[in-house]
């Protein structure tokens, strides 16, 4: 999938961390390469969920 625009959780580098290896997240039934940090606000968490749910759909 090629996502349009930049998801909100990726607009601040303090909010997320890029991993060397993907990890499996049961909620999305998929492997992800980015996890959120403790600094991520609620809106970023929501955006992260939306983004990865959408990634798994396609």
């Amino acid at each position, binding site marked *: *999938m*090629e*996502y*349009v*625009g*930049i998801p909100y959780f*990726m607009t601040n580098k303090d909010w997320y961390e*890029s991993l*060397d*290896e*993907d990890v*499996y997240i049961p909620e999305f039934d*998929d*492997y*992800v*390469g*980015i996890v959120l940090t403790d600094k991520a606000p609620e809106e970023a968490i929501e955006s992260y969920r939306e*983004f990865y749910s*959408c*990634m798994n759909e*396609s």
Partner: protein
Amino acid sequence: MVKSASYMAKYRIRIKAQQKGIQKPYQAGSSSDTKKDLKNMFEAAGFDTVNVSDDFPTPVAGAFALQLQNLEHKFGGVAMYKEYGDQNSVRQAALTTDDSGNAYGYYARQHPTGVTKNGKGTIEAQINLNPKLLADIKWHQKQLKVEQSLGFKVATNDNILSATRYTVTHEYGHLLQESIYKKAVAGGYSKSYNQFTGKMKREINAIAKRDYGATGKEPSSYGGTNSREFFAEAFTSMNLGKPNAHGMATRDWLKKNGYI
């Protein structure tokens, strides 16, 4: 639509010329012929099912088809899928153009039909391109430039054709990576697709660091979202005129493993 007098005069001259047999019928621009030509162009890239939306201007759809032909000629991803893909199924490739929400496009494996008489179902390797986001190339180029300037997508040269080719190249990258995996499985590789894409990511990253001085872990921040997007973005970088360290490393990886 009302035609002008000068248009009708030119039209009458053309018809008279055709009747005298000195000019071939003027048909290439008619919409049904154009659609047929476009379908043929996608089929030449290996796609069995082709459904191109009328919302795409002909030059844009033509640019997609030519890029797919070019990529297929270089890498043979569609042919590789048909040879090594899901072995218990009839394997085909599809090019579709549905509205895919907030995605320029996507790659998926679809099951368009049920099980056939011989007990085999059909599985299509499908590339979908979103006409709502890709038909207006000027809007798309502007949007892509914003994403590129922030490092979310890989850089390309400033040619508008490279912007037009971005999504179709990215999605072909997904198709190619899966075809490479299927070939590896046919050759005895027994681990999961995610383990395979993770291995490719590690190997490409190692080349990017060692040979091209890469400082980051991914070709673009979108390429960091998972190891499948990592390859699709690095592959796009490699093919659209301004390869970064990961783009060049991807080219080297493909060469080293016999895919170029």
